[in-house]
């Protein structure tokens, strides 16, 4: 056989194999994964959050119109349910969400109560300014609604000197959140096609984007939700007021919901997600699959976070063993993602961002 015929044979077999799609095992396609993520996971989470904020604002308007224990409780329920929804959509912080700075405006904590109070008493403020980032969003509402017992809170909106200003401040915040989110969501519908079209695996691809935000959100779970309040970043000095939802004491609930949201992001809901992508790359011989390891780790993290007990702001002092165990398991989850998952999918950790949720 001379070189020419060898070359010909090579070319022919290349084409035959290239076109012979039937012989492949189950088809996996990054584009299909992105489509599923965009339509069945990301978009529903945005829509849900949008609805939550609309209803939160209307509850706030109702409450300020007639501040009673009943309307306060409706508002509080709306607040908790919006905060829980936020745990499902915050890791999709790219495109318009990133451009509008939604994530930071929504949940930079701890809230700066001094700034909030001074804004209320002066009655003049620009909520979008950088200095007010810790005086707006869910943490600010958390403070306004839960800072004290029901009677005191009701009084602050009814009989106190600044009651009028406080009511305005509350609805200004809920309105800002509602409007900004709606703006980002409507911009998303234009961005969605670009998101699906960037189906490579390079630094600017949507898969890399999704992966980076996913890992970043697990790190936020580890640091912002647990590690910082537990004092791991401050030389062992616990910082109870750094927990998420400090006044409403729903930190553990939020952390658990965040794990649910992350699990959903990893598995692509019930459709194609990172789990299917990993299995496609691994092939059948890898056992246990990295997918099983990561999902088992999610379950373990959830159990360990539950074991801390509530409220977290007290447990960082009284149940430090459980806190450190939960922290260790979440750290393992980060390790799985930054080592095995990154290697298997050939994706780079590229984000460069500051702290905060």
């Amino acid at each position: 056989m001379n070189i020419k015929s060898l070359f010909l044979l090579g070319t022919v077999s290349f084409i035959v194999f290239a076109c012979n799609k039937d012989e492949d095992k189950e088809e996996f396609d990054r584009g299909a994964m992105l489509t599923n993520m965009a339509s069945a996971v990301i978009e529903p989470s945005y829509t849900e959050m949008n609805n939550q904020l609309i209803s939160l604002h209307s509850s706030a308007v109702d409450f300020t119109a007639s501040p009673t224990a009943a309307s306060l409780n409706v508002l509080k329920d709306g607040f908790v349910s919006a905060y829980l929804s936020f745990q499902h959509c915050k890791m999709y912080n790219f495109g318009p969400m990133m451009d509008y700075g939604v994530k930071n405006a929504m949940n930079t904590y701890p809230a700066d109560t001094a700034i909030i109070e001074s804004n209320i008493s002066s009655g003049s403020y620009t909520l979008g300014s950088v200095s007010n980032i810790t005086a707006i969003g869910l943490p600010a509402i958390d403070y306004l609604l839960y800072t004290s017992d029901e009677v005191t809170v009701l009084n602050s909106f009814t009989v106190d000197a600044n009651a009028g200003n406080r009511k305005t401040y509350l609805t200004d915040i809920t309105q800002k959140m509602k409007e900004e989110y709606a703006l980002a969501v409507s911009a998303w519908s234009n961005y969605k096609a670009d998101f699906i079209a960037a189906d490579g695996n390079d630094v600017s691809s949507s898969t890399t984007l999704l992966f980076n935000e996913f890992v970043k959100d697990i790190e936020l779970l580890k640091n912002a939700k647990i590690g910082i309040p537990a004092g791991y970043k401050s030389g062992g000095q616990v910082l109870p007021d750094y927990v998420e939802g400090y006044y409403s004491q729903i930190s553990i609930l939020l952390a658990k919901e965040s794990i649910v949201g992350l699990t959903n992001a990893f598995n692509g809901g019930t459709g194609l997600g990172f789990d299917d992508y990993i299995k496609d790359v691994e092939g059948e011989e890898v056992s246990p699959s990295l997918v099983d390891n990561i999902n088992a780790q999610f379950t373990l993290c959830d159990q360990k976070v539950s074991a801390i007990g509530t409220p977290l702001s007290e447990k960082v002092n009284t149940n430090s063993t459980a806190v450190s165990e939960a922290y260790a398991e979440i750290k393992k989850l980060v390790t799985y993602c930054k080592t095995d998952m990154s290697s298997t999918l050939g994706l780079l950790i590229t984000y460069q961002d500051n702290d905060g949720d």
Partner: protein
Amino acid sequence: MTGIKSAISFFKLRNFSWFKTVSAAPLAVYRIGFGLLMLFSTIRFISKGWVQEIYIDPAFHFSYYGFEWLPYPTPSVLYLLFALMILGAVLITLGLFYRFGATLFFLTFTYVELLDKTNYLNHYYFVSLIAFLMIWLPANRYFSLDAKLGRCTASDSVPLWSIRILQFQIAAVYIFAGIAKLETDWLIHAQPLKYWLHTAHHWEYIGNFLKQEWVAYAFAWAGCIYDLTIVLFLSIQKTRKFAYMAVIVFHLMTWLLFPIGVFPWVMMFATTIFFSAHFHEKIIRILKKIIGDTKTPSSVVVSFPSQRLKKVTTAFLGVYIMIQIILPFRYLLYEGDLFWSEQGYRFSWRVMLMEKSGHATFYVKDKKSGIQTEVENRDFLTPNQEKMMSTQPDMILQFAHHLEDVYRDTVITQYGVDMKFEEPEVYAEVYVALNARPHQLMVDKKHNLAAISNDLTERNWLSPYNR
């Protein structure tokens, strides 16, 4: 010393035959090609914003062992260095003030490379070596402005060694790259190639082709055989054409599949040095036609170097070749797993052999007060630096030492808490996944890294790697 002696005697045996004169055309084409490629790649580097991102943004720099003393340039000096690099590349291309241009390019390029090992790439090392060799080669004797303006002795011929040393360098790259592939991960498991090919695809049909398991093995074995034999087939006149076609196919494929920048183009160009003088003379004739230079008479000046110069040149070449051959084998001095400890990994033409990702957590503990805090790597490193550091032991140690410096006798404020550090100890917990194996512990938290010196001795502080 015996190495040098034997090298000299080796060349003497051949009666200095490396000094016989040959056509200067290959060297002239090489000079122009190298100059243009370097011009292009330097401009590309600047236009991608990498000067800012890679050299100005980082607050800490991972210096090379033995080059810690190099001063770090200010942003404006950095841009000046890149401007000088461009000037050097232009002068090389034109063959104008050639030796100055080559020296300028070599010094600026190498200096910038030595600033931070985060950015180490085998092809940058290759460029540094070629630029260094170019300084000493008479590449401006023919078809250059220096020759035309009478700035040097114009001549149609150059000594054979000036071509052979370039061929040697290219042979070293391929053959050592081939030898490095003779290991189980590459040949038996086709890793990391298998996963890379699986995820590299972008096109539906090719993607399904690249996903096939046998394709990964075919690519792995073919790549290895290619690296080991291509120089031989390029050297034999009969097989040269097919060999060069293989060069093009091989490097185009790597260029299409993997983000490896200009390296494929550098190699596709560099291998033309194996072509005949006749081929290169044809290129020069075409170039002459393009620039409308038909009048320059050919010059037949042949210089006869003195015996002394021959000896010095031979010794110089001998030492250079010895170093190039020994360097890739220095890993044999260490017991640890080469891929894990990476001792002797750089400067050895080990290309595409590893997929390594890590997760490194650092803790600083004050020996006096006992307070311990977890470090946010991002506060000190860029994402790229953090990624590189997380898998490379010497960088882990360098970063630990940097943390020791930052925390020593300092009050660090985090989340409103003042922490006073006097005698910081630095601990790290590092997990690394290598070539499709599940992650393993690389650095145990029990070692105070601040107390371990960063030198060329065995890295006993690493946890062993289980293949």
